[in-house]
């Protein structure tokens, strides 16, 4: 009997996170501590995972250094480490930004925090697996945790409505994804991505219909997860209904996991069929950008606005995906820049309209510049970053993927993209106008928690820093890839 090659080093960070989740649940049962203590455990396990990831990074000598332990299910390479860095940053910032929510949850805080960690584990596995079934498992671990998190404030009707919509459409997407996997398996006889690539290398597929349908379904399934149009319909409702404190993490985590899996599948498994999938992805990308920005423009709820802008951002990232593996550093820079802004944006929404509440009308932000200059400034930087104004990380990110797309010959897509970014300016400016140029009403001055305050400082600084000096982060991203 052959035992699969076990490499604890490859999954050490995930083990740390799972240990953290289990510890939270056990500690909570035994001692019923303050949420603050549980937050400490989260911090501890996230830091441990980060340290272990740093260790992994240095253990892997070169970008092309890749081993595939666990019978070829996990890829131990710098790509997965990089993805995990971004994911851990988002997790830490998400928990810090939504800390008020966990405090309010009281006894249920343990549950929520454990779910946050488990979702992180799931998405982390999505990024580090190189086997379709393993990707599916990561996807489900992450998604199912998020379904529950969306409804964690279950006494509010719009929260459990959000949970149900997320659940139904999310599992529908998962089913579509796994059916695509099954068809890819039927077409190639392999489930490991490298195996599929080798198969396509060695064989000429005479009847590619099954393969093509399978690939289309995989793209559609992941398109749901990253909320690309036309599979985005769940996003606005879920972002609006779920408690503000976790939406940032939910949205960012799902985007990271989804794009990690999508790029891994397309670039590692099926680079030879790039002609087929690139045009499909390009169309999805154009649709996402167009639909995202136009619908974002007409929203009166900041969260729905952020949801639709998230659709547009999925489109922008997909412009990098169409360019193929050469664009991967750019895609990851974009994901890092955008997800940090996303988490920061929702932390501000949570601070302004209440971390457990659903919906966040634009009116709640009127005159925020007077009521809380700090929050208004942080939100402005965040929104300008999302808009991609130069000297913010958002600009460098957009620029990077656009250059890749143009180099790959998709100049029409780049033109659509730059026009969409102009419309997107209008989206974000509306919020800035309301914050700076409308008189504050009766509303009180919102005060973010200390954790959220620090997290926002970090997010704002990183948005500007990586906008002015993108080189270190870009180099880091490039060092993860052998391009």
């Amino acid at each position, binding site marked *: 009997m052959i035992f699969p090659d076990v490499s604890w080093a490859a999954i050490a960070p995930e083990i740390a996170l799972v240990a953290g989740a289990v510890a939270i649940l056990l500690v909570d049962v035994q001692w019923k501590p303050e949420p603050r203590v549980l937050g400490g455990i989260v911090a501890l396990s996230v830091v441990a995972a980060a340290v272990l990831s740093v260790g992994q990074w240095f253990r892997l000598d070169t970008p092309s250094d890749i081993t595939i332990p666990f019978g070829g299910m996990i890829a131990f390479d710098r790509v997965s480490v990089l993805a995990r860095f971004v994911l851990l940053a988002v997790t830490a910032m998400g928990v810090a930004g939504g800390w008020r929510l966990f405090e309010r949850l009281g006894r249920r805080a343990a549950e929520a925090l454990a779910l946050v960690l488990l979702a992180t584990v799931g998405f982390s596995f999505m990024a580090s697996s190189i086997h379709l079934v393993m990707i599916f498992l990561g996807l489900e671990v992450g998604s199912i945790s998020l379904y529950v998190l969306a409804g964690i404030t279950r006494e509010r009707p719009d929260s459990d409505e959000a949970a149900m919509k997320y659940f139904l459409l999310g599992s529908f997407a998962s089913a579509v994804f796994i059916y695509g996997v099954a068809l890819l398996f039927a077409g190639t006889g392999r489930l490991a991505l490298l195996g599929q690539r080798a198969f396509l290398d060695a064989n000429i597929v005479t009847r590619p219909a099954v393969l093509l349908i399978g690939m289309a379904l995989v793209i559609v399934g992941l398109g749901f997860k990253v909320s690309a149009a036309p599979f985005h319909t769940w996003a606005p409702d879920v972002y609006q209904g779920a408690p503000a404190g976790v939406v940032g993490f939910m949205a960012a985590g799902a985007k990271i996991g989804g794009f990690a899996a999508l790029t891994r599948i397309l670039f590692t498994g099926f680079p030879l069929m790039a002609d087929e999938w690139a045009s499909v992805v390009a169309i999805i990308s154009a649709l996402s950008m167009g639909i995202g920005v136009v619908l974002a423009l007409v929203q009166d709820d900041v969260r729905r606005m952020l949801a639709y802008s998230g659709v547009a951002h999925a489109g922008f990232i997909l412009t990098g995906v169409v360019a193929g593996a050469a664009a991967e550093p750019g895609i990851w820079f974009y994901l890092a820049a955008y997800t940090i802004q996303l988490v920061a944006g929702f932390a501000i929404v949570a601070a302004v309209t209440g971390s457990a509440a659903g919906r966040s009308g634009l009116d709640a932000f009127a005159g925020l510049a007077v009521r809380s200059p700090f929050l208004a400034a942080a939100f402005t930087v965040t929104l300008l970053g999302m808009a991609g104004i130069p000297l913010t990380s958002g600009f460098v990110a957009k620029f990077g993927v656009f250059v890749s797309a143009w180099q790959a010959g998709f100049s029409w897509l780049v033109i659509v993209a730059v026009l969409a970014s102009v419309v997107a300016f209008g989206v974000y400016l509306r919020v800035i106008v309301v914050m700076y*140029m409308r008189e504050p009403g009766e509303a009180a001055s919102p005060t973010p928690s200390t954790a959220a305050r620090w997290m926002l400082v970090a997010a704002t600084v990183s948005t500007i820093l990586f906008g002015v000096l993108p080189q270190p982060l870009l180099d880091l991203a490039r060092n993860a890839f052998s391009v």
Partner: protein
Amino acid sequence: MLTWLILTPVVGAAVVALLPRRRPELYLPVGVALSLIPLALAGVLFFEFETGEAGFQFLQQALWYEPLGISYRVGVDGISLGLIVLTAVLVPISLAASTSIDRRVKEFVVYILLLEAGLFGVFVALDLFLFFVFFEAILVPMYFIIGIWGGERRIYAAVKFFLYTAVGSALMLAAIIALAVMHARQTGAPSFDFADLLALDLSPSTQRWLFAAFGLAFAIKVPIFPLHTWLPDAHVEAPTAGSVLLAGVLLKLGTYGFLRFNLTLFPQATVDLVTVLAVLAVVGIIYGGLVAIVQPDLKKLVAYSSVSHLGFIVLGTFALTSGGLQGGVIQMINHGLTTGALFLLVGMIYERRHTKKIADFGGLAKVMPVYAGFFLFMAFASIGLPGLNGFIGEFLVLVGSFATLPVYAVIAAFGVILAAVYLLWAYERVFTGVPDKPENQRLVDLSGREIAILAPLVVLVLVLGLYPKVLLDKVAPSTEAILDRIEQTTDFQVPEPGRLADVFVAEGEGR
């Protein structure tokens, strides 16, 4: 040196931001004092500048993001030098003129200083990526300046301003990416370096597309008719300092961009499209002048006069002659000085009367003789009275464009007459006659501070009017180099009288 120029306003903004909240009266004076540092630097720059050199000076370079060929590369030539000095002069003046700003003064000063940094950045950038970064980044402070401290319809104006200019620059971004990718195809590595991109071999049709993408961005900025509709709104709503910088410097980004990038990167397309631009420029000159005549609002009148004046600059630029190009550059500076001064003057009267309607005034010359004197002086400068700066610029443009675009030059000459009509007629209605309205009879004349604000502009107007050589000598080599490049890369030849600029300058001085 140039890096310091960009950094000092940023540092200044940080200093102002850190001033204690208890001492709001400090913000403006400190801001003015801090903005004198870049002015001093610009002065040093001007006098250290090696006259007679065509190329870029004070070059500085640092790798920014190597794999994409993006570097931090700055330098100054004769074209940008004047604009830098103009910016450095106008910022302290407009700050000093902003005492009527009564809320959120600190933020106001911060935004103005950041705007200044961005403007310096645009003018010194020699890497297209860097240029675009600054080009876009200046939208943000300007947007806030209009949107927070503007008039009644400020939000509408601010958003319109932002989106209009953003549309143009978005396509320019696509074109910049296209250039870098073509560089990668032709040499193996992408580059955004201006000098590298000049060496590209572009087919005429590619040139035309890219010219259009760059041109749209700049045409909106200028603004060239029919893309000008954002301008009156933005000007009318903006606070005085905003208007001064908008008209004085921001509009020049468009004409500067045409001159710096369109003419040099896409010479063939430039030659092909001269007629289109010339038609639009002339339409803008006449249209702006006519609309200005019928404006009931002083500020709007000055705003539309900008459309007309900028038309001259565009016409001169696309005349592709020494006179036209030099006149265009000179006129950029002149327009910044005179229109800036006119906006200041309108702002001063607005602070007193809280109206800008021409009909509300009358006979002000009796009540405020000093003010009337300044206004008349600046109006004359703007019309182009010989001996004042506007004359040199417009004269050079007209003579220069007569060599290649005679018909357009003749039509444009009517624009000069229109300028006289709208400005002098406005002067007549506002200042002459008897002050019959009781509100007007009690107006106070200019204070010492206000005179001190206007005085430097008057001096510069006189200097440039009487001795333009000080600037022309620095400009000429750079514009000649552009013409040389066009002649070398296309079969266009500048007609013989077109390259004899110095003769015209001498003549201009003589009158």
